[in-house]
Protein backbone atom coordinates (compact mmCIF):
# COMPACT_ATOMS: atom_id res chain seq x y z
CA UNK A 1 0.00 0.00 0.00
CA UNK A 2 1.39 3.39 -0.88
CA UNK A 3 0.98 6.27 1.45
CA UNK A 4 0.97 9.81 0.13
CA UNK A 5 3.03 12.15 2.29
CA UNK A 6 3.18 15.26 0.13
CA UNK A 7 0.62 16.73 -2.21
CA UNK A 8 1.04 20.07 -3.93
CA UNK A 9 -1.83 21.46 -5.98
CA UNK A 10 -2.18 24.57 -8.15
CA UNK A 11 0.61 26.32 -6.25
CA UNK A 12 1.93 29.72 -7.32
CA UNK A 13 5.20 30.94 -5.82
CA UNK A 14 7.02 34.25 -5.80
CA UNK A 15 10.14 35.43 -3.99
CA UNK A 16 9.63 36.79 -0.54
CA UNK A 17 8.46 40.41 -0.64
CA UNK A 18 7.90 40.39 -4.38
CA UNK A 19 4.76 39.82 -6.43
CA UNK A 20 6.51 38.53 -9.53
CA UNK A 21 5.63 34.86 -9.97
CA UNK A 22 8.59 32.50 -10.11
CA UNK A 23 6.60 29.29 -10.46
CA UNK A 24 3.01 28.86 -11.57
CA UNK A 25 0.46 26.13 -11.13
CA UNK A 26 2.76 23.55 -9.55
CA UNK A 27 1.18 20.13 -9.03
CA UNK A 28 3.07 17.19 -7.60
CA UNK A 29 2.81 14.43 -5.07
CA UNK A 30 5.17 12.05 -3.34
CA UNK A 31 4.61 8.72 -1.63
CA UNK A 32 6.41 7.22 1.33
CA UNK A 33 9.78 5.76 0.44
CA UNK A 34 10.03 7.56 -2.89
CA UNK A 35 12.75 9.86 -4.18
CA UNK A 36 11.89 13.01 -6.09
CA UNK A 37 14.66 14.72 -8.01
CA UNK A 38 14.27 18.39 -8.88
CA UNK A 39 16.23 19.50 -11.94
CA UNK A 40 16.44 22.94 -13.49
CA UNK A 41 18.80 25.65 -14.62
CA UNK A 42 20.38 28.14 -12.23
CA UNK A 43 17.72 30.58 -11.15
CA UNK A 44 14.86 28.44 -12.46
CA UNK A 45 13.17 28.31 -9.06
CA UNK A 46 14.35 24.96 -7.64
CA UNK A 47 15.38 26.45 -4.33
CA UNK A 48 12.18 28.52 -4.19
CA UNK A 49 10.15 25.33 -4.58
CA UNK A 50 12.26 23.60 -1.94
CA UNK A 51 11.83 26.49 0.49
CA UNK A 52 8.07 26.43 -0.02
CA UNK A 53 7.85 22.67 0.55
CA UNK A 54 9.91 23.10 3.75
CA UNK A 55 7.48 25.69 5.05
CA UNK A 56 10.06 28.50 4.90
CA UNK A 57 8.40 30.46 2.09
CA UNK A 58 4.84 31.75 2.41
CA UNK A 59 2.64 31.35 -0.66
CA UNK A 60 -0.51 33.12 -1.78
CA UNK A 61 -2.25 30.61 -3.98
CA UNK A 62 -2.51 26.83 -3.94
CA UNK A 63 -1.92 24.11 -1.39
CA UNK A 64 1.01 22.21 0.04
CA UNK A 65 -0.32 19.27 2.02
CA UNK A 66 2.22 17.40 4.14
CA UNK A 67 0.69 14.32 5.74
CA UNK A 68 -2.72 15.69 4.72
CA UNK A 69 -2.14 18.91 6.62
CA UNK A 70 -1.35 22.29 5.10
CA UNK A 71 2.37 22.95 5.61
CA UNK A 72 1.81 26.45 7.06
CA UNK A 73 -0.40 25.08 9.83
CA UNK A 74 2.21 22.65 11.19
CA UNK A 75 3.83 23.71 14.43
CA UNK A 76 7.59 24.17 13.95
CA UNK A 77 8.42 21.43 16.42
CA UNK A 78 6.03 18.84 14.93
CA UNK A 79 7.27 19.64 11.45
CA UNK A 80 10.89 19.30 12.59
CA UNK A 81 10.12 15.78 13.81
CA UNK A 82 8.78 14.78 10.37
CA UNK A 83 10.94 16.76 7.97
CA UNK A 84 14.66 17.54 7.98
CA UNK A 85 16.40 20.01 5.76
CA UNK A 86 19.77 20.70 4.16
CA UNK A 87 19.98 23.99 2.31
CA UNK A 88 22.69 25.21 -0.04
CA UNK A 89 23.80 27.78 2.52
CA UNK A 90 26.39 26.23 4.76
CA UNK A 91 27.95 29.22 6.50
CA UNK A 92 27.71 28.79 10.20
CA UNK A 93 29.12 31.22 12.69
CA UNK A 94 31.44 30.06 15.34
CA UNK A 95 33.42 27.07 16.41
CA UNK A 96 31.36 23.95 16.62
CA UNK A 97 32.59 20.39 16.76
CA UNK A 98 31.24 18.03 14.12
CA UNK A 99 29.72 15.73 16.74
CA UNK A 100 28.16 18.64 18.59
CA UNK A 101 26.77 19.96 15.32
CA UNK A 102 25.24 16.64 14.31
CA UNK A 103 23.68 16.44 17.78
CA UNK A 104 21.85 19.73 17.07
CA UNK A 105 19.70 17.52 14.85
CA UNK A 106 18.15 16.15 18.05
CA UNK A 107 16.77 19.56 19.06
CA UNK A 108 13.15 18.75 18.13
CA UNK A 109 13.27 15.88 20.64
CA UNK A 110 15.28 17.26 23.56
CA UNK A 111 14.20 19.40 26.50
CA UNK A 112 14.93 23.10 27.09
CA UNK A 113 18.48 22.40 28.13
CA UNK A 114 19.12 20.31 25.03
CA UNK A 115 20.20 17.36 27.16
CA UNK A 116 20.93 14.28 25.07
CA UNK A 117 19.34 11.03 26.23
CA UNK A 118 20.55 7.55 25.33
CA UNK A 119 18.30 7.35 22.26
CA UNK A 120 19.54 10.76 21.07
CA UNK A 121 23.16 9.63 21.35
CA UNK A 122 22.30 6.49 19.39
CA UNK A 123 20.63 8.53 16.63
CA UNK A 124 23.69 10.79 16.41
CA UNK A 125 25.99 7.79 16.27
CA UNK A 126 23.91 6.13 13.57
CA UNK A 127 23.83 9.18 11.31
CA UNK A 128 27.59 9.74 11.70
CA UNK A 129 28.02 6.11 10.61
CA UNK A 130 25.63 6.31 7.66
CA UNK A 131 27.28 9.42 6.29
CA UNK A 132 30.77 7.97 6.67
CA UNK A 133 32.14 10.88 8.69
CA UNK A 134 33.66 9.03 11.66
CA UNK A 135 37.08 10.42 10.74
CA UNK A 136 35.74 13.98 10.99
CA UNK A 137 33.93 13.69 14.29
CA UNK A 138 36.55 15.47 16.40
CA UNK A 139 37.15 18.26 13.90
CA UNK A 140 35.57 21.70 13.97
CA UNK A 141 33.14 22.68 11.23
CA UNK A 142 35.35 25.54 10.04
CA UNK A 143 38.21 23.10 9.39
CA UNK A 144 36.15 21.11 6.89
CA UNK A 145 36.27 21.31 3.12
CA UNK A 146 33.07 22.15 1.25
CA UNK A 147 32.62 18.51 0.34
CA UNK A 148 33.06 17.36 3.94
CA UNK A 149 30.60 20.01 5.10
CA UNK A 150 28.07 18.59 2.67
CA UNK A 151 28.23 15.21 4.40
CA UNK A 152 28.24 16.68 7.88
CA UNK A 153 25.14 18.73 7.12
CA UNK A 154 23.41 15.63 5.80
CA UNK A 155 24.37 13.81 9.01
CA UNK A 156 22.77 16.58 11.07
CA UNK A 157 19.57 16.28 9.06
CA UNK A 158 19.59 12.47 9.45
CA UNK A 159 19.98 12.82 13.21
CA UNK A 160 16.54 14.45 13.16
CA UNK A 161 15.18 10.91 12.47
CA UNK A 162 12.60 12.24 10.03
CA UNK A 163 10.48 10.33 7.55
CA UNK A 164 11.00 13.07 5.00
CA UNK A 165 14.31 14.61 3.93
CA UNK A 166 14.64 17.71 1.80
CA UNK A 167 18.09 18.32 0.37
CA UNK A 168 19.00 21.31 -1.77
CA UNK A 169 21.94 20.28 -3.96
CA UNK A 170 23.44 17.60 -1.69
CA UNK A 171 26.04 16.66 -4.33
CA UNK A 172 27.51 20.11 -5.00
CA UNK A 173 31.24 20.38 -4.10
CA UNK A 174 31.57 16.60 -4.02
CA UNK A 175 33.96 14.67 -6.26
CA UNK A 176 32.57 11.82 -8.36
CA UNK A 177 33.33 9.14 -5.80
CA UNK A 178 31.69 11.05 -2.99
CA UNK A 179 28.76 12.06 -5.19
CA UNK A 180 28.14 8.40 -5.87
CA UNK A 181 28.34 7.47 -2.19
CA UNK A 182 26.00 10.35 -1.30
CA UNK A 183 23.50 9.16 -3.94
CA UNK A 184 23.81 5.57 -2.76
CA UNK A 185 23.01 6.78 0.73
CA UNK A 186 19.93 8.61 -0.58
CA UNK A 187 18.84 5.44 -2.32
CA UNK A 188 19.32 3.20 0.69
CA UNK A 189 17.58 5.68 3.00
CA UNK A 190 14.54 5.56 0.77
CA UNK A 191 14.50 1.90 -0.21
CA UNK A 192 15.67 0.34 3.06
CA UNK A 193 14.41 2.81 5.66
CA UNK A 194 11.33 4.00 3.78
CA UNK A 195 12.28 7.67 3.93
CA UNK A 196 10.79 10.03 1.38
CA UNK A 197 13.44 12.27 -0.13
CA UNK A 198 13.24 15.38 -2.25
CA UNK A 199 16.51 16.66 -3.63
CA UNK A 200 17.88 18.91 -6.31
CA UNK A 201 21.13 18.42 -8.16
CA UNK A 202 23.11 19.51 -11.19
CA UNK A 203 24.70 16.08 -11.64
CA UNK A 204 21.53 15.05 -13.45
CA UNK A 205 22.79 11.83 -15.07
CA UNK A 206 23.96 10.33 -11.79
CA UNK A 207 21.08 11.71 -9.75
CA UNK A 208 18.46 10.40 -12.19
CA UNK A 209 19.59 6.87 -11.43
CA UNK A 210 18.35 7.01 -7.85
CA UNK A 211 15.17 8.99 -8.53
CA UNK A 212 11.65 7.60 -8.72
CA UNK A 213 10.22 10.86 -9.99
CA UNK A 214 11.63 13.86 -11.74
CA UNK A 215 10.40 17.42 -11.42
CA UNK A 216 11.78 19.49 -14.24
CA UNK A 217 11.63 23.20 -13.44
CA UNK A 218 11.65 25.26 -16.63
CA UNK A 219 10.31 28.72 -17.44
CA UNK A 220 8.17 29.01 -14.35
CA UNK A 221 6.58 25.60 -14.80
CA UNK A 222 7.17 22.27 -13.14
CA UNK A 223 6.97 19.20 -15.37
CA UNK A 224 6.51 15.99 -13.44
CA UNK A 225 8.02 12.98 -15.21
CA UNK A 226 9.40 9.52 -14.73
CA UNK A 227 13.20 9.43 -15.08
CA UNK A 228 12.82 7.24 -18.15
CA UNK A 229 10.77 9.96 -19.91
CA UNK A 230 13.79 12.20 -19.69
CA UNK A 231 15.98 9.73 -21.56
CA UNK A 232 13.26 8.97 -24.12
CA UNK A 233 12.10 12.45 -24.97
CA UNK A 234 14.43 15.01 -26.55
CA UNK A 235 12.02 17.78 -25.66
CA UNK A 236 12.80 17.43 -21.96
CA UNK A 237 16.53 17.07 -22.55
CA UNK A 238 16.52 20.32 -24.49
CA UNK A 239 14.67 22.06 -21.66
CA UNK A 240 17.39 21.20 -19.19
CA UNK A 241 20.52 20.77 -21.28
CA UNK A 242 20.13 23.19 -24.18
CA UNK A 243 20.75 22.23 -27.76
CA UNK A 244 24.17 20.66 -27.75
CA UNK A 245 23.94 17.87 -25.19
CA UNK A 246 21.75 14.83 -25.81
CA UNK A 247 21.23 11.27 -24.70
CA UNK A 248 22.42 9.05 -27.51
CA UNK A 249 20.31 5.88 -27.64
CA UNK A 250 22.92 4.08 -29.74
CA UNK A 251 25.83 4.58 -27.36
CA UNK A 252 23.52 4.69 -24.33
CA UNK A 253 25.15 7.82 -22.95
CA UNK A 254 24.93 11.59 -23.01
CA UNK A 255 27.16 13.18 -25.59
CA UNK A 256 28.03 16.61 -26.91
CA UNK A 257 26.74 17.62 -30.33
CA UNK A 258 29.01 20.55 -31.09
CA UNK A 259 29.02 20.60 -34.91
CA UNK A 260 25.89 19.28 -36.44
Amino acid sequence: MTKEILNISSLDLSYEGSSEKVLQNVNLSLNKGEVLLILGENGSGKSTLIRAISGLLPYQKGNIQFYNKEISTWSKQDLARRMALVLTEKNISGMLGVEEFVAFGRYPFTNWLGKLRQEDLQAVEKSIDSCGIQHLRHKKIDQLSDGEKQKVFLARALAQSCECLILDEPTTHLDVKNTVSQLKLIQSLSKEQGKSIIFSSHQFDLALQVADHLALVVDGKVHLLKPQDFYDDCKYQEMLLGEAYRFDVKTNRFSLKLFS
Partner: protein
Amino acid sequence: MSGRRNTNALFLLLLLALPLLFALNLSVGSVDISITDLFLVLKGEATKSSHELIFFQSRLPKAFTALICGASLSVSGLLMQSLFRNPLAGPYILGISSGAGLGVALVVMGATIFGIGLSASFTIPLAAVLGALLILFILFLVSLRLKDVMTLLILGIMLGSIATAIVGIIQYFTTDFQLKSFLIWTLGSLEGLSYAELKLLAAINGLALIAAFLLNKPLNAFLLGEDYAKSMGIVVKSSRLFIILISGILAGLITAYCGPIGFVGIIVPHLCRLLFKSSNHRILIPAAVLMGAELLLLSDVLAQLPGNGVKLPINSVSSIIGIPIILWIIFKKRSISKSF
Protein backbone atom coordinates in the same frame (compact mmCIF):
# COMPACT_ATOMS: atom_id res chain seq x y z
CA MET B 1 36.65 12.46 25.02
CA SER B 2 39.54 14.86 25.53
CA GLY B 3 37.48 17.92 24.53
CA ARG B 4 35.04 17.39 27.36
CA ARG B 5 37.83 16.85 29.89
CA ASN B 6 39.43 20.14 28.80
CA THR B 7 36.13 21.93 29.16
CA ASN B 8 35.65 20.60 32.68
CA ALA B 9 39.21 21.52 33.66
CA LEU B 10 38.72 25.06 32.36
CA PHE B 11 35.47 25.45 34.26
CA LEU B 12 37.17 24.25 37.42
CA LEU B 13 39.94 26.79 36.87
CA LEU B 14 37.46 29.62 36.37
CA LEU B 15 35.48 28.52 39.43
CA LEU B 16 38.62 28.53 41.57
CA ALA B 17 39.76 31.89 40.22
CA LEU B 18 36.48 33.57 41.14
CA PRO B 19 36.80 33.51 44.96
CA LEU B 20 40.50 34.43 44.66
CA LEU B 21 39.79 37.50 42.54
CA PHE B 22 36.85 38.35 44.79
CA ALA B 23 39.11 38.29 47.84
CA LEU B 24 41.83 40.26 46.04
CA ASN B 25 39.23 42.85 45.06
CA LEU B 26 38.06 43.11 48.67
CA SER B 27 41.57 43.63 50.02
CA VAL B 28 42.66 46.37 47.60
CA GLY B 29 41.66 49.97 48.04
CA SER B 30 42.68 53.25 49.63
CA VAL B 31 43.13 51.33 52.88
CA ASP B 32 44.87 47.97 52.41
CA ILE B 33 43.12 45.15 54.20
CA SER B 34 45.22 42.01 54.18
CA ILE B 35 43.65 38.63 53.50
CA THR B 36 44.08 37.64 57.16
CA ASP B 37 42.33 40.85 58.19
CA LEU B 38 39.53 39.96 55.77
CA PHE B 39 39.00 36.67 57.58
CA LEU B 40 38.99 38.46 60.90
CA VAL B 41 36.35 40.88 59.65
CA LEU B 42 34.24 37.97 58.40
CA LYS B 43 34.55 36.24 61.78
CA GLY B 44 33.49 39.48 63.47
CA GLU B 45 36.86 39.86 65.16
CA ALA B 46 38.20 42.83 63.21
CA THR B 47 41.25 44.36 64.79
CA LYS B 48 40.21 47.84 63.64
CA SER B 49 36.62 48.98 63.60
CA SER B 50 37.38 51.06 60.51
CA HIS B 51 38.15 47.81 58.65
CA GLU B 52 34.71 46.50 59.43
CA LEU B 53 33.08 49.74 58.28
CA ILE B 54 35.05 49.90 55.03
CA PHE B 55 34.45 46.23 54.40
CA PHE B 56 30.70 46.18 54.83
CA GLN B 57 29.87 49.68 53.64
CA SER B 58 32.11 49.93 50.63
CA ARG B 59 34.21 46.96 49.59
CA LEU B 60 31.68 44.15 49.79
CA PRO B 61 28.86 45.89 47.89
CA LYS B 62 31.37 47.07 45.27
CA ALA B 63 32.77 43.57 44.78
CA PHE B 64 29.27 42.13 44.44
CA THR B 65 28.40 44.88 41.97
CA ALA B 66 31.48 44.04 39.91
CA LEU B 67 30.50 40.38 39.94
CA ILE B 68 26.90 40.90 38.82
CA CYS B 69 27.85 43.64 36.39
CA GLY B 70 30.58 41.61 34.66
CA ALA B 71 28.42 38.50 34.41
CA SER B 72 25.38 40.39 33.13
CA LEU B 73 27.14 42.48 30.51
CA SER B 74 29.09 39.50 29.16
CA VAL B 75 26.01 37.35 28.71
CA SER B 76 24.06 40.28 27.29
CA GLY B 77 26.80 40.86 24.72
CA LEU B 78 27.00 37.16 23.91
CA LEU B 79 23.25 37.07 23.18
CA MET B 80 23.55 40.03 20.81
CA GLN B 81 26.57 38.55 19.00
CA SER B 82 24.76 35.28 18.46
CA LEU B 83 21.43 36.82 17.49
CA PHE B 84 23.00 39.08 14.88
CA ARG B 85 25.79 36.65 13.95
CA ASN B 86 28.10 39.63 14.31
CA PRO B 87 31.38 39.55 16.25
CA LEU B 88 31.24 43.30 16.88
CA ALA B 89 27.85 43.30 18.55
CA GLY B 90 27.69 43.99 22.27
CA PRO B 91 25.14 44.70 24.98
CA TYR B 92 24.67 48.25 23.75
CA ILE B 93 24.42 47.58 20.03
CA LEU B 94 20.66 48.13 20.02
CA GLY B 95 20.89 51.51 21.68
CA ILE B 96 19.97 50.33 25.19
CA SER B 97 22.69 52.40 26.86
CA SER B 98 21.96 55.45 24.73
CA GLY B 99 18.33 55.24 25.81
CA ALA B 100 19.43 54.94 29.43
CA GLY B 101 21.81 57.86 28.86
CA LEU B 102 18.97 59.97 27.52
CA GLY B 103 16.90 59.23 30.62
CA VAL B 104 19.78 60.16 32.92
CA ALA B 105 20.63 63.26 30.90
CA LEU B 106 17.06 64.47 31.22
CA VAL B 107 17.12 64.01 34.98
CA VAL B 108 20.63 65.32 35.67
CA MET B 109 20.76 68.18 33.21
CA GLY B 110 17.12 68.70 32.33
CA ALA B 111 16.63 70.84 35.41
CA THR B 112 18.31 73.90 33.94
CA ILE B 113 16.48 73.61 30.67
CA PHE B 114 13.01 72.53 31.65
CA GLY B 115 13.03 73.83 35.18
CA ILE B 116 12.36 70.40 36.69
CA GLY B 117 14.74 68.96 39.20
CA LEU B 118 14.54 65.49 40.67
CA SER B 119 17.35 64.69 42.98
CA ALA B 120 16.37 61.65 45.05
CA SER B 121 18.96 58.86 44.93
CA PHE B 122 16.70 56.50 43.03
CA THR B 123 15.91 58.93 40.21
CA ILE B 124 19.04 58.23 38.15
CA PRO B 125 18.56 54.46 38.01
CA LEU B 126 14.85 54.94 37.44
CA ALA B 127 15.41 57.39 34.60
CA ALA B 128 17.99 55.06 33.07
CA VAL B 129 15.64 52.07 33.26
CA LEU B 130 12.84 54.08 31.68
CA GLY B 131 15.13 55.26 28.89
CA ALA B 132 16.36 51.73 28.21
CA LEU B 133 12.81 50.39 28.33
CA LEU B 134 11.67 52.97 25.79
CA ILE B 135 14.27 51.77 23.30
CA LEU B 136 13.49 48.13 24.09
CA PHE B 137 9.77 48.75 23.59
CA ILE B 138 10.27 50.36 20.16
CA LEU B 139 12.55 47.48 19.13
CA PHE B 140 9.95 44.99 20.29
CA LEU B 141 7.17 46.58 18.28
CA VAL B 142 9.32 46.70 15.19
CA SER B 143 10.71 43.19 15.49
CA LEU B 144 7.16 41.81 15.52
CA ARG B 145 6.80 43.11 11.97
CA LEU B 146 10.31 42.52 10.70
CA LYS B 147 11.42 39.32 9.01
CA ASP B 148 15.04 40.32 8.78
CA VAL B 149 17.22 40.54 11.84
CA MET B 150 19.76 42.81 10.09
CA THR B 151 17.16 45.54 9.66
CA LEU B 152 16.58 45.35 13.38
CA LEU B 153 20.29 45.83 14.02
CA ILE B 154 20.41 48.93 11.83
CA LEU B 155 17.28 50.29 13.48
CA GLY B 156 18.79 49.75 16.93
CA ILE B 157 21.94 51.62 15.95
CA MET B 158 19.83 54.48 14.58
CA LEU B 159 17.67 54.68 17.70
CA GLY B 160 20.86 54.85 19.76
CA SER B 161 22.19 57.66 17.59
CA ILE B 162 18.98 59.66 17.96
CA ALA B 163 19.13 59.30 21.74
CA THR B 164 22.79 60.34 21.74
CA ALA B 165 21.96 63.32 19.52
CA ILE B 166 19.27 64.51 21.92
CA VAL B 167 21.71 64.09 24.80
CA GLY B 168 24.15 66.27 22.84
CA ILE B 169 21.58 69.05 22.57
CA ILE B 170 20.84 68.83 26.29
CA GLN B 171 24.56 68.95 27.06
CA TYR B 172 24.96 72.06 24.94
CA PHE B 173 22.42 74.00 26.96
CA THR B 174 23.28 72.83 30.44
CA THR B 175 25.57 74.23 33.15
CA ASP B 176 29.18 73.13 33.66
CA PHE B 177 28.43 71.51 36.99
CA GLN B 178 25.59 69.40 35.70
CA LEU B 179 27.55 68.49 32.59
CA LYS B 180 30.31 67.11 34.78
CA SER B 181 27.95 65.06 36.89
CA PHE B 182 26.49 63.56 33.70
CA LEU B 183 29.95 62.84 32.32
CA ILE B 184 30.88 61.08 35.54
CA TRP B 185 27.84 58.84 35.09
CA THR B 186 28.98 57.98 31.55
CA LEU B 187 32.38 56.86 32.88
CA GLY B 188 30.73 54.14 34.89
CA SER B 189 31.13 53.26 38.52
CA LEU B 190 30.72 50.14 40.59
CA GLU B 191 30.31 52.10 43.79
CA GLY B 192 27.46 53.45 45.81
CA LEU B 193 24.93 50.66 45.56
CA SER B 194 23.01 49.95 48.74
CA TYR B 195 22.35 46.37 49.82
CA ALA B 196 18.67 46.80 48.91
CA GLU B 197 19.62 47.87 45.40
CA LEU B 198 22.10 45.02 45.15
CA LYS B 199 19.47 42.50 46.17
CA LEU B 200 17.10 43.81 43.51
CA LEU B 201 19.83 43.76 40.88
CA ALA B 202 20.99 40.27 41.88
CA ALA B 203 17.44 38.89 41.87
CA ILE B 204 16.39 40.27 38.49
CA ASN B 205 19.68 39.72 36.69
CA GLY B 206 20.11 36.31 38.30
CA LEU B 207 16.77 35.24 36.85
CA ALA B 208 17.69 36.80 33.50
CA LEU B 209 20.95 34.83 33.45
CA ILE B 210 19.06 31.60 34.11
CA ALA B 211 16.62 32.54 31.35
CA ALA B 212 19.57 33.16 29.03
CA PHE B 213 20.85 29.67 29.76
CA LEU B 214 17.41 28.24 28.96
CA LEU B 215 17.68 29.96 25.57
CA ASN B 216 20.77 27.90 24.69
CA LYS B 217 18.91 25.84 22.07
CA PRO B 218 17.59 28.74 19.96
CA LEU B 219 20.93 30.54 20.40
CA ASN B 220 22.81 27.54 19.06
CA ALA B 221 20.30 27.10 16.26
CA PHE B 222 20.76 30.75 15.24
CA LEU B 223 24.44 29.99 14.61
CA LEU B 224 23.23 28.06 11.55
CA GLY B 225 20.96 30.87 10.40
CA GLU B 226 17.23 31.38 10.80
CA ASP B 227 16.15 28.93 8.08
CA TYR B 228 17.91 26.03 9.75
CA ALA B 229 16.67 27.21 13.13
CA LYS B 230 13.08 26.94 11.84
CA SER B 231 13.73 23.53 10.33
CA MET B 232 14.99 22.37 13.72
CA GLY B 233 11.71 23.29 15.35
CA ILE B 234 12.73 26.67 16.81
CA VAL B 235 10.02 29.32 16.75
CA VAL B 236 12.20 32.09 15.41
CA LYS B 237 10.14 35.20 16.14
CA SER B 238 9.41 34.53 19.79
CA SER B 239 12.95 33.26 20.42
CA ARG B 240 14.28 36.48 18.92
CA LEU B 241 12.00 38.56 21.18
CA PHE B 242 13.11 36.63 24.26
CA ILE B 243 16.77 37.06 23.37
CA ILE B 244 16.34 40.83 22.91
CA LEU B 245 14.32 41.09 26.11
CA ILE B 246 16.80 39.15 28.27
CA SER B 247 19.79 40.95 26.80
CA GLY B 248 18.01 44.30 27.29
CA ILE B 249 17.13 43.58 30.94
CA LEU B 250 20.69 42.50 31.73
CA ALA B 251 22.32 45.51 30.09
CA GLY B 252 19.60 48.02 30.98
CA LEU B 253 19.66 47.42 34.72
CA ILE B 254 23.45 47.44 34.88
CA THR B 255 23.56 50.70 32.95
CA ALA B 256 20.99 52.14 35.31
CA TYR B 257 23.07 51.42 38.41
CA CYS B 258 26.64 51.53 37.13
CA GLY B 259 26.52 53.61 33.97
CA PRO B 260 27.53 52.37 30.55
CA ILE B 261 30.45 49.98 31.11
CA GLY B 262 31.31 49.21 27.57
CA PHE B 263 33.95 46.80 26.61
CA VAL B 264 33.34 43.80 28.85
CA GLY B 265 30.24 42.78 26.93
CA ILE B 266 32.03 42.63 23.59
CA ILE B 267 35.30 41.08 24.67
CA VAL B 268 34.30 38.40 27.19
CA PRO B 269 32.23 36.33 24.72
CA HIS B 270 35.26 36.25 22.41
CA LEU B 271 37.58 35.26 25.24
CA CYS B 272 35.22 32.44 26.18
CA ARG B 273 35.02 31.13 22.62
CA LEU B 274 38.80 31.15 22.32
CA LEU B 275 39.45 29.62 25.69
CA PHE B 276 36.86 26.86 25.39
CA LYS B 277 37.28 26.52 21.61
CA SER B 278 33.54 26.28 21.26
CA SER B 279 30.54 28.32 20.25
CA ASN B 280 28.06 26.07 22.00
CA HIS B 281 25.96 28.24 24.30
CA ARG B 282 25.61 25.48 26.86
CA ILE B 283 29.30 26.13 27.50
CA LEU B 284 29.53 29.81 26.56
CA ILE B 285 26.82 31.16 28.86
CA PRO B 286 28.21 29.78 32.15
CA ALA B 287 31.71 30.60 30.90
CA ALA B 288 30.71 34.21 30.16
CA VAL B 289 29.16 34.53 33.62
CA LEU B 290 32.42 33.46 35.29
CA MET B 291 34.86 35.25 33.00
CA GLY B 292 32.79 38.44 32.90
CA ALA B 293 32.67 38.59 36.69
CA GLU B 294 36.41 37.89 36.90
CA LEU B 295 37.44 40.43 34.27
CA LEU B 296 35.49 43.17 36.00
CA LEU B 297 36.78 42.25 39.47
CA LEU B 298 40.30 42.41 38.03
CA SER B 299 39.62 45.71 36.23
CA ASP B 300 38.42 47.16 39.49
CA VAL B 301 41.59 46.01 41.26
CA LEU B 302 43.69 47.66 38.55
CA ALA B 303 41.58 50.81 38.76
CA GLN B 304 42.92 51.27 42.32
CA LEU B 305 46.56 50.85 41.31
CA PRO B 306 47.53 54.55 41.30
CA GLY B 307 47.12 54.36 45.10
CA ASN B 308 46.55 57.18 47.58
CA GLY B 309 42.82 56.76 47.17
CA VAL B 310 42.93 57.69 43.49
CA LYS B 311 40.57 55.56 41.43
CA LEU B 312 40.48 55.42 37.68
CA PRO B 313 37.10 55.23 35.93
CA ILE B 314 36.17 51.54 35.61
CA ASN B 315 34.95 52.02 32.05
CA SER B 316 38.36 53.23 30.91
CA VAL B 317 40.24 50.53 32.81
CA SER B 318 38.16 47.67 31.43
CA SER B 319 38.75 48.99 27.91
CA ILE B 320 42.48 49.43 28.55
CA ILE B 321 42.76 45.82 29.75
CA GLY B 322 40.37 44.51 27.13
CA ILE B 323 41.90 45.99 24.01
CA PRO B 324 45.37 44.40 24.39
CA ILE B 325 43.69 41.03 24.97
CA ILE B 326 41.63 41.42 21.80
CA LEU B 327 44.71 42.55 19.86
CA TRP B 328 46.71 39.60 21.17
CA ILE B 329 43.94 37.27 20.04
CA ILE B 330 43.73 38.88 16.61
CA PHE B 331 47.49 38.66 16.06
CA LYS B 332 47.68 35.12 17.32
CA LYS B 333 44.73 33.88 15.36
CA ARG B 334 45.21 36.30 12.44
CA SER B 335 41.48 36.78 12.37
CA ILE B 336 38.78 37.01 14.96
CA SER B 337 36.14 35.77 12.56
CA LYS B 338 37.82 32.35 12.73
CA SER B 339 36.87 32.04 16.33
CA PHE B 340 33.49 33.55 15.91
